[in-house]
C-alpha cells in the first residue's frame, strides 16, 4: 500500500513542472504561437533557478530568477518569430541549441569546475494541516511543495481565463482566425508576443522545479527532453489546461513507474521502456487522436501586407 501511495505521490510530484510548462504552452498556442523554444526555456529556468538559490539561499529569489531567465529566452523567441517573421520551428531549434551552450558556458563561468557537484537543499514539502491527515489522499495530494499547490491553482485559473474572460476570447481568436481578431481591432502581434512571454515565465519556473524541488543540483542534462513532453502534453490535452493536467499526471506515473521498476527489480519490462513511455504515448496519441481541436492558425506567423 505504502508503495502505491509513494508511487502516486511521486507521479504527482513529477507532473508539476510538466503541467506548468504545458499551461504556458497552451496559453501561447491558443494565440497561434508554437513555443518551440520550450526545451531551451526549461533549461534556462533550471540554470537560473539553481544559481539564484545557490547564491542567495532564498527559494523566492531562485524561482524569480528562473522566471526571468525563461521570460528572457521567450522574448528573444517572440521577437524573432512574431516581429521578425522567422519560422517558429527553425527558430525554436536555434534557440534551444544556443541555450544548451549558454547555460553550460556561464555555469562554468560562475562556478568553475567544482570537484564535487554543487548541492542545494531541495525545497521542502508543506503538509497542509488536517487535509494531509486524510488517509491515502492526504499524503498524495496535500503533502506536496508550494509550487505544486500553486500549479493546481494555476490550472484552474488558466482554464477560467481562457474560456470565461475577455482576455481568453482574445487569445483564442488570435489563434483561430487572426484576420478576424485584427478586424475586431485587436493587435494580434502584441497579443502573441506577450502570450509567448507568459509561456516563458512559466516554463522557467518549470525548469527550475527539476533542480530546486527534485534534484537539489544542476546538470546540463537535467531537462533532457522534458520541455518537449510539456509541448506534447499541450497537443494531447487538446489545448485545455485541465486535460493537460491529466496527461501530465499520466506521464508522472510513467516516470514514477520507471524509478519503481529500477528499485524494485521487477524487471519484466526494462526500465528503458518506462523512460521512453511518455514519448511513445505522445507518438501513439498524436497519430490516433482524431478530434484534435488545434488552433487553426497554429504555427503560422501573422503578416499583413501594408
Amino acid at each position, binding site marked *: 500500500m505504502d508503495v502505491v501511495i509513494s508511487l502516486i505521490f511521486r507521479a504527482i510530484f513529477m507532473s508539476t513542472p510538466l503541467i506548468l510548462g504545458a499551461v504556458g504552452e497552451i496559453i501561447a498556442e491558443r494565440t497561434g504561437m508554437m513555443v*518551440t523554444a520550450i526545451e531551451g526555456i526549461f533549461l534556462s529556468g533550471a540554470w537560473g533557478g539553481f544559481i539564484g538559490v545557490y547564491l542567495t539561499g532564498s527559494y523566492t529569489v531562485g524561482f524569480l530568477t528562473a522566471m526571468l531567465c525563461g521570460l528572457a529566452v521567450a522574448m*528573444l523567441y517572440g521577437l*524573432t518569430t512574431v516581429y*521578425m*517573421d*522567422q519560422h517558429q*520551428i*527553425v*527558430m525554436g*531549434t*536555434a*534557440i*534551444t*541549441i*544556443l*541555450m*544548451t*551552450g*549558454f547555460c*553550460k*558556458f*556561464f555555469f*562554468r*563561468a560562475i562556478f568553475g569546475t567544482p570537484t564535487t557537484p554543487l548541492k542545494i537543499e531541495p525545497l521542502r514539502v508543506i503538509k497542509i494541516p488536517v487535509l494531509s491527515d486524510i488517509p491515502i489522499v492526504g499524503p498524495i495530494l496535500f503533502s506536496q511543495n508550494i509550487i505544486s499547490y500553486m500549479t493546481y491553482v494555476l490550472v484552474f485559473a488558466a482554464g477560467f481565463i481562457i474560456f470565461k474572460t475577455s482576455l481568453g476570447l482574445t487569445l483564442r481568436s488570435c489563434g483561430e482566425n487572426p484576420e478576424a481578431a485584427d478586424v475586431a481591432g485587436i493587435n494580434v502581434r502584441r497579443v502573441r508576443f506577450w502570450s509567448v512571454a507568459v509561456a516563458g515565465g512559466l516554463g522557467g519556473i518549470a525548469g527550475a522545479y527539476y533542480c530546486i524541488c527534485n534534484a537539489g543540483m544542476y546538470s546540463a542534462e537535467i531537462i533532457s*527532453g522534458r520541455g*518537449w513532453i510539456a*509541448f*506534447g502534453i499541450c*497537443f494531447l490535452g487538446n489545448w485545455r489546461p485541465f486535460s493537460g493536467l491529466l496527461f501530465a499526471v499520466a506521464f508522472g506515473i510513467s516516470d514514477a513507474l520507471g524509478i519503481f521498476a529500477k528499485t524494485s527489480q521487477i524487471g519484466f519490462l*526494462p526500465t*528503458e*521502456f518506462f*523512460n*521512453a513511455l511518455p*514519448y*511513445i504515448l*505522445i*507518438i501513439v496519441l*498524436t*497519430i*490516433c487522436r482524431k478530434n484534435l481541436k488545434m488552433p487553426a492558425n497554429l504555427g503560422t506567423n501573422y503578416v499583413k501586407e501594408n
Partner: protein
Amino acid sequence: MIQLKQEVRTLKKNRDVYDFIIWTVLAIAVGLVLSFSFLPMFGISSIDAMKIMITEIFSSSYSMGNILVKTAPLILTGLAFAFTYKAKLFNIGIQGQFYVGCITAAAISLKMQGHAPGLVVIILAALGSVAGGAFVGFMIGFFKAKFGANEFLVSMMSTYVFTYLNLFLMRTVLQESNHNYIKTDYLDKSVWLPQLIPGTAVSWGIVFSILVAVLVWFVLYKTSLGYRIRMTGLNKEAAGMAGIKPERQFMISFAISGAIAGFAGWIEVNGMQHMMLPDFDAEIGSFGVGIAILANSHPIGILFAALLFGFLQVGGTALGHASGAPPSVIELMQGFVMLFVLMSFFFRRKIEINRLKKLKSENEEVA
C-alpha cells in the same frame, strides 16, 4: 532599353547570391565575436583565444584531420534535414534516425564480423543502417500523410524513443563482453572503414559524405523526383494542379531523409567510434538543423556550413585543452551563429522590400 533591363535582372540574380553570402558571413562573424567576447570571464583575452584556436588547429595534421572527421556526419545530418525542409516538412528526429543507423551498423558489424569478409560486412552494415533510417523516416512521413499527424511532434518524440531503445540494447543483447559498462564491444578492425589519410583519424567517411551531398544535389535538382519534392514545398497548390500528390512526396522525402541520417550512423560507428556508446554524438541532429539553416538548405552550401561547424568543434576543443576555456564555448558559438544568421534573413528581406518599393515608385514617375 529592354537590353538594359535584362542586364539589370541578370545582375540582380547574381547579387542575390552575393547578398546571401555576404550577409551570412557577416552574421557568422558577429556570432563568433560575441561568443569570444565572453572568454575574458575565464581569464583569456578574446584575441588570444582566436589565435590559440587557429594555431592549435593548424599545428598538426591530426587536428586538421579531426575537422574532417567531425564534418563528415554533420554533412549528412544537415542534408537529412534539408531534404525534408525542401518539401516544407520538419524532420526534427534526425538524431533518432541517426541512432537507428548507428545501432544497426554496430549490430550487423558485431554479429557478422569474422563470419564474412570485412568488406562484405561493411557494405551490409551500410545497407542496414540506411534501411533502418529510411524505415523510421518513412513511418513518420506515412503518419503525416495518412493520419495527418504533426510530423514535427512525432519526429521529435521518436528521437527519445530510439535513444532509450539503444540504451536497452546496449544494456542487454549488444552489451560488451564483460557486462560492466553500457556500451557495445569494439568492432573488429576488419570491419572498420579504411583510413583515408595516414596519421589522422580521417576515414573514407568524409568522401562518402561529400558523395552523398553531390548525390542529394543531383536528386534534388536534376531528377523529376527531386523536382516534385521541391515543387511541393514551394507551392503545394500548383503541385496538386500538376497532378502531383503532396502526401506521396511527404513519404518519399521523409524516407530519403531518414536514410541519409541512418547512413551518418554507419559512418560514425564503422568509421570513427568503432563501437556504440550512450549519449553518443547527442547533438548531431540539432547541429544538422543548424547547418541546413545556415546553408539555406542547399546541398553544396551544407558542405561549407558543416565544415564551419566541424572547425568550431575541433577549434573549441583545442582551445579548451590549451587554455581554461570550457568546451561549451563550441555550442555557444554555434548557437549565436545560428541566431544571427536567422536574424540576417529578416534584415536582408526588409532592405530588399524597401528597395523594391522605391524602385517601383520611381518607375511609375518615369512612366
